[in-house]
């Protein structure tokens, strides 16, 4: 029994875990619900790793060194097994005369790698949550939701049919919604969950329409079919571009790219493991994954530049804004937005494998960072980095792992981010120098805000937060799609001493820290590009000659170091509270460059503007006309009743009139 044949259990197990927990979770004692869910994820993760092993053995391998030296014709070392990519198919929804919607599990190298990544990240986040969520109301429900989310994400990754991709995609959206609002009694959480759902749902319309159009042209929703030249020949280039971009819109929404990034910051209202899992490691990168799956179409339609630009703008913009925040989770959320931008940038400049590499690497180190922040919050009882009190002293494990994650994020060798991000930047440099410059600038800011975070939270004693006064708590009219950048509540208790987190949480942190290093190394030249060998896709000209690569590594590292240096100079060496940007700039950044307000006051307001007009129209015009016709009948009736006057002579006259009418009618 190969792992491939068991692959459907990978999403199915957590789904069953969900069913069990939602139905019977309430009666499970103690932390059993958490352990049960973690156990289920562990089995899934083992299966996923097994699947990865199967794929690694069966997939074709390329000699990347040969490609680097320009001899691509002899690059294929091993052609791969004939039944690769693996495909399992069941009849799901059949319509006579149509392709219908078969249930397909499609496992190629990308799917296997991302599956393994998701399963592992989920496993550790589950484990972390056992301790983190303990004591919360609806403890078992939380794990049930996490399980279903994992199931959906795994199903999405493994789906071989775009309809099922959409299905899983939407279920992820739902779980994101439910988990953001897990603390449903908070008004801010309610607003945030609604905003997230509506924004992504709006974006998903593109996915839906794109699928319809695709089906119209090629007659099915099959993922593998899309990559075949025969199929692509059916689609005119212009149409391919439109379809590709429609789907890309959904990706932009899901991956919180500019200009649909607005929901992710508010999504930090959810519990920290949720932020780690959904809003850092997995779901948000599903958008990138989807774009990667539609890659043939985008290439066919010459639409990649749009993707690249969106990615580059987002990467830069988010990295610039991040230093303006004091909430540790929000800084990390901006960081996520920025890093996802890198992935799109990579995809957009033909760096497909690089982007995917970054996706996997980012998942681990960002999960690690979020869990670390969770641990910080857990220990310090505050989310504001200025209020955290020399955590390095109290939480050594947290500090150490957080530092690993940060270095990976900043792109310092030999951590994961270094290898993946610089590959992306190399691809950009080759295809669009201006995007490369934007990416480098973003890298500088990344290093800056990360260092700032570490210095202030871990090294400095607590200080009054300068940001609270400026916190923006404005509600919104009407539908209240609202940004909810409210101060975190409850207020931190005074005189609290931070402490290190429990066993499960630390284990999870350490495991992820190790993975953050391992994954990077697996894709590094020193490991003979093990990961990239699997991912490498056909003749994409994305990997550059070694010489140029090395220079890129050096430049990237220098930029990161300069960012660290500046932050160190300002915050570690100086007094953090003295370092202030001009007020207008602070305010603009804090208000997220007014983009949310634009959505509120313009887009949402315009979108809702017909509501009351139409409701009025419905009640008083359409229904009013109906009532009016009834009323007119009654009025007519009351007038006609005067004809029946009670007078005999009048009645006789009616008879005569009747005769006359008949006579005149008959005589013609």
């Amino acid at each position, binding site marked *: 029994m190969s792992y491939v044949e068991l692959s459907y259990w990978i999403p199915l197990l957590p789904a069953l875990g969900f069913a069990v927990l939602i139905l019977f979770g309430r009666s499970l004692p103690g932390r059993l619900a958490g352990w049960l869910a973690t156990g289920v994820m562990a089995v899934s993760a083992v299966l996923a790793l097994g699947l990865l092993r199967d794929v690694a053995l069966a997939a074709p391998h390329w000699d990347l060194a040969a490609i680097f030296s320009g001899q691509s014709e002899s690059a294929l070392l091993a052609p791969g097994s004939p039944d690769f990519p693996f495909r399992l198919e069941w009849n799901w*929804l059949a*319509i006579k*005369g149509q392709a219908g919607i078969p249930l397909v599990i499609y496992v190629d190298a990308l799917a296997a790698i991302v599956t393994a990544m998701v399963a592992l990240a989920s496993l550790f986040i589950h484990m972390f949550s056992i301790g983190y969520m303990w004591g919360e109301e609806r403890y078992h429900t939380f794990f049930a939701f996490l399980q279903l989310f994992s199931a959906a994400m795994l199903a999405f990754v493994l789906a071989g049919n775009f309809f099922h991709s959409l299905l*899983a995609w939407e279920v992820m959206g*739902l779980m994101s919604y439910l988990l953001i609002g897990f603390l449903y009694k908070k008004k801010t959480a309610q607003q945030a969950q609604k905003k997230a759902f509506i924004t992504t749902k709006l974006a998903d319309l593109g996915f839906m*329409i794109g699928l*319809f159009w695709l089906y119209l042209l090629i007659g099915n929703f099959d993922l593998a079919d899309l990559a075949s030249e025969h199929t692509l020949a059916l689609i005119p280039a212009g149409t391919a571009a439109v379809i590709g971009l429609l789907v890309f819109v959904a990706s932009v929404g899901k991956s919180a790219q500019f200009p649909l990034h607005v929901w992710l910051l508010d999504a930090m209202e959810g519990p920290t493991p949720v932020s780690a899992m959904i809003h850092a490691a997995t779901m948000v990168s599903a958008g990138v994954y989807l774009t990667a799956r539609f890659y043939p179409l985008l290439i066919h339609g010459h639409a990649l530049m749009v993707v690249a630009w969106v990615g580059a703008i987002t990467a830069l913009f988010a990295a610039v804004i991040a230093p303006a925040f004091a909430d540790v989770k929000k800084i990390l959320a901006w960081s996520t937005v920025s890093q996802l931008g890198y992935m799109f940038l990579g995809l957009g400049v033909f760096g497909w494998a690089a982007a995917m590499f970054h996706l996997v690497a980012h998942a681990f180190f960002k999960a690690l960072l979020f869990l670390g922040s969770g641990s910080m919050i857990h220990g310090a009882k505050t989310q504001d980095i200025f209020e955290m009190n020399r955590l390095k002293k109290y939480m050594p494990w947290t500090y150490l792992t957080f530092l690993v994650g940060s270095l990976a994020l900043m792109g310092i060798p030999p951590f994961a981010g270094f290898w993946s991000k610089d590959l992306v930047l190399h691809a950009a440099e080759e295809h669009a120098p201006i995007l490369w410059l934007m990416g480098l600038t973003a890298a500088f800011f990344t290093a800056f805000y990360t260092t700032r975070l570490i210095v202030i939270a871990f090294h400095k004693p607590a200080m009054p937060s300068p940001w609270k006064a400026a916190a923006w708590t404005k509600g919104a009219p009407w539908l209240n*799609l609202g940004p909810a950048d409210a101060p975190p509540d409850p207020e931190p208790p005074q005189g609290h001493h931070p402490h290190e987190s429990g066993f499960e949480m630390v284990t999870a942190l350490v495991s992820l820290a190790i993975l953050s290093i391992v994954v990077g190394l697996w894709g590094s030249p020193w490991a003979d590009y093990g990961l990239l060998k699997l991912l490498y896709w056909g003749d994409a000209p994305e990997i550059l000659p070694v010489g140029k690569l090395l220079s890129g590594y050096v430049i990237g590292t220098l930029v990161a170091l300069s960012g660290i240096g500046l932050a160190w100079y300002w915050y570690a060496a100086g007094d953090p509270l003295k370092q202030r940007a001009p007020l207008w700039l602070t305010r603009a950044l804090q208000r997220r460059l007014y983009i949310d307000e634009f959505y509120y006051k313009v887009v949402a307001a315009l979108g809702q503007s017909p509501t*009351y007009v*139409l409701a009025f129209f419905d009640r008083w015009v359409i229904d009013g006309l109906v009532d009016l016709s009834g009323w007119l009948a009654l009025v007519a009736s009351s007038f006609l009743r005067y004809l029946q006057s009670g007078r005999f002579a009048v009645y006789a006259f009616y008879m005569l009139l009747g005769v006359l009418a008949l006579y005149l009618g008959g005589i013609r």
Partner: protein
Amino acid sequence: MTLLLIFLPIVAAALVGLLPDPKAEAGKRIALGVALFTLLASVGVYFAYPVGSGGFVSQFRLDWLRLIGSSFHVGLDGLSLPFVALTPLLTAVSVLASWRKTDKGFFALMLLLQGALVGLFAALDLIVFFLFFEAVLVPMYFMIAIWGYEERRYAAVKFLIYSLVGSVFMLAAMLATAYLAQPALGELSFDYLKLLSASGYLAALPAAAWLFWGFAIAFLIKLPAVPVHTWLPHAHTQAPTAGSIFLAGLLLKMGGYGLIRFNLALFPGELKHFSGLLAIVAFVSIVYGAYVTLAQRDLKRLIANSSVNHMGYVLLGIASMTAVGLHGAVYQMVAHGVITGLMFLMVGLLAERTHTREIAAMKGVYPAAPKLGGVLWLALLGGLGLPGLAGFLGEFQSLWGGFLGVMTRPYVWWAVFGIVILAGAMLWTIQRVLLGKAETEVADLEPYEVYAAAPLVFLAVLLGLVPALLTPWIDAGIQPILTLVQEVLK
């Protein structure tokens, strides 16, 4: 078997009506028993149906009105079976939902409705169809008018008159169809299957457009499509819980079912000719319905208006005239029956507890009553077309089919926005009603209420994940019609 499914409830209704004590407990027990028994029977018929070969099963035919060529002809096929099975299910749910009521008349009316609805879906004779179409009105009228909320009479009359407006034109069209088809058939017949064989002849008639609209008006009102939908908010809002479940779960389906059965099958040419217009109506229903939903302050009214949106997808699927779209239409109808039935069930139970339907007067229902709140949450999410629940597949297929249809394609581009608007309405409702801190005590679901909700929850999920429980039947019902349509259109 068909006869049993139709007449057992009717006979039982008479039995309940004749109980000496007007407040007899036996009334609801009989009603529940009959509903459950017919449910078992209908499920049996459903699964015994030969999906592969299709056609009509369990046919029964009896010369009835020989003079005008109408016979009591009933039978079941893949198109009607889902509804025939859904009817007793929702009846059972409604009985359980009304377990606190004691009036025997209420339960008798429910059984009467059940029988009439099954008869409607099983009818294979135009006159019989009309008979049951009308027969549904009277019990529903009384159910709303006697046991409804404060403006029940206005709502009941509106429901009655609106429905009649449609049905009388349908009757006229039926008569005209039969008489105009007489030369082709060589005899006067209201038999559906015979008329079906003459659909090519009917299509060539100069009066075909009139006939088409005669049928269509009735079904569009029942569906309901904007702008003939305004009976629905009143009726749904004012009806008692059971009445709302029937209305939403089954009565609206009469419209979509009729459109497929008659407008599509008998007048495909006209449907094709007017499909652009119908697509506009569908698009307007979807978007407009969603917007109006967004503005409601009354919880039941809100859900009622969401039905306008949901049934817009049905019309879109039908107007597309594609296999996919029709699948979507039927799927959406069944899904809507389950999910909106569930919504009304929960909202009804909630309104009984809080003694208000004002959204503004509710808050934090979920923490106060987790089971009720949780199920209502699920139902509302189902209402916004959440994937994994039945509603999504219906909407998706309808839109998909709509995109495949040439005439409907342009409107799909805009109809999809209805999804987001409705999502906004539903989420906002969830936020206002369910979330937040509990302010008042709300009793959680009683065991029997859990039993009422459980099958609907189960079905909502099951149909969202396992379409194979429905699509083969739809295929068996739709494909012969589509084949015929293609022949006629040639």
